[in-house]
């Protein structure tokens, strides 16, 4: 009985590890994608909501690279995405100035906000060219590094006439949404929790190319 149980566990483990953990696309091997985009299509946004006020911010100045083996995203995914703190815009010029102020994000002292992939904890195949990936990474804001979990959706498009119109090469679309608490990044402000929520929702929607 024990032997049957052990064998079953072994077969199950082998089956799970043998499952594809990547894309089923034309491309092969390790691919590197750059998210540098001069057209301003790539973006990261944040949202804060309190009973008193709602703030939306957006930047299109994203840069960074990710690389992975097309067939094994889980074990090979690595990279870093960053944006200049001063590039965040909220639709109100005075509020943009406040955002860069030392009382808030201190853009002069901490000019970059970044996310660096540490490990992939789970890969779920949504379509042959679409994966939902659970990533753990270092989110750096206001000079503080915190490891956070992020759920990322990756869409791989092989080079075609449709992708060519956007950019040359294979394209990788990445969307992610996650939350952070400003107080855990040493952003201490009297208005925090009143006009601006401590809990900030962050979203990214970026497209990268492997021909750069």
């Amino acid at each position, binding site marked *: 009985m024990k032997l049957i149980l052990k064998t079953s566990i072994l077969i199950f483990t082998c089956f799970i590890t043998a499952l594809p953990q990547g894309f089923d696309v034309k491309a092969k091997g390790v691919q590197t994608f750059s998210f540098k985009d001069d057209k301003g*299509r790539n*973006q990261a*946004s944040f949202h804060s909501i309190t009973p*008193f*006020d709602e703030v*939306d911010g*957006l930047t299109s100045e994203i840069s960074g690279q990710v690389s992975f083996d097309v067939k094994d995203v889980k074990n090979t995914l690595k990279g870093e995405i960053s944006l200049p703190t001063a590039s965040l*815009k909220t*639709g*109100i*010029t005075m*509020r943009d100035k406040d955002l860069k102020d030392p009382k808030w994000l201190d853009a002069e002292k901490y000019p970059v906000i970044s996310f660096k992939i540490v490990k992939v904890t789970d890969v779920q195949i949504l379509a042959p060219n679409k994966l939902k990936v659970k990533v753990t990474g270092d989110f750096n804001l206001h000079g503080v590094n915190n490891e956070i979990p992020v759920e990322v959706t990756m*869409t791989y*498009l092989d080079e075609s006439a*449709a*992708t060519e119109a*956007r950019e040359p090469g294979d*394209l990788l*679309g990445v*969307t992610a949404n996650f939350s952070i608490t400003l107080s855990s990044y040493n952003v201490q402000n009297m208005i925090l929790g009143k*006009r601006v929520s401590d809990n900030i929702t962050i979203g990214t*929607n970026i*497209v990268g190319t492997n021909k750069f």
Partner: protein
Amino acid sequence: MNIKQKITFAAGLAIIVTVFIIWIVNGTYVFTQTQVLIEKQDPLFGTTYQEWQNKFIWGLDLTLFISAISIIASTILFFIFKDKRKNRNEINS
């Protein structure tokens, strides 16, 4: 309260009511905005992304500012009109 004072009072009140109506119609935003985020479709990836679009949104700050100016102006005019009538009465007597 003479007729001019009544007109001043009514005009001041009308301005305040109007700016508050404009504020409510604009969506009761706290701060006046000159840009708003609009959602756009990315047909290639089937996702949505956002873009800033120039649009003026009337906020509570502007509403209170105009209301305050209206109150101050109405108060000043109210006293100016009151003084004139008083002076005229004094001359007549």
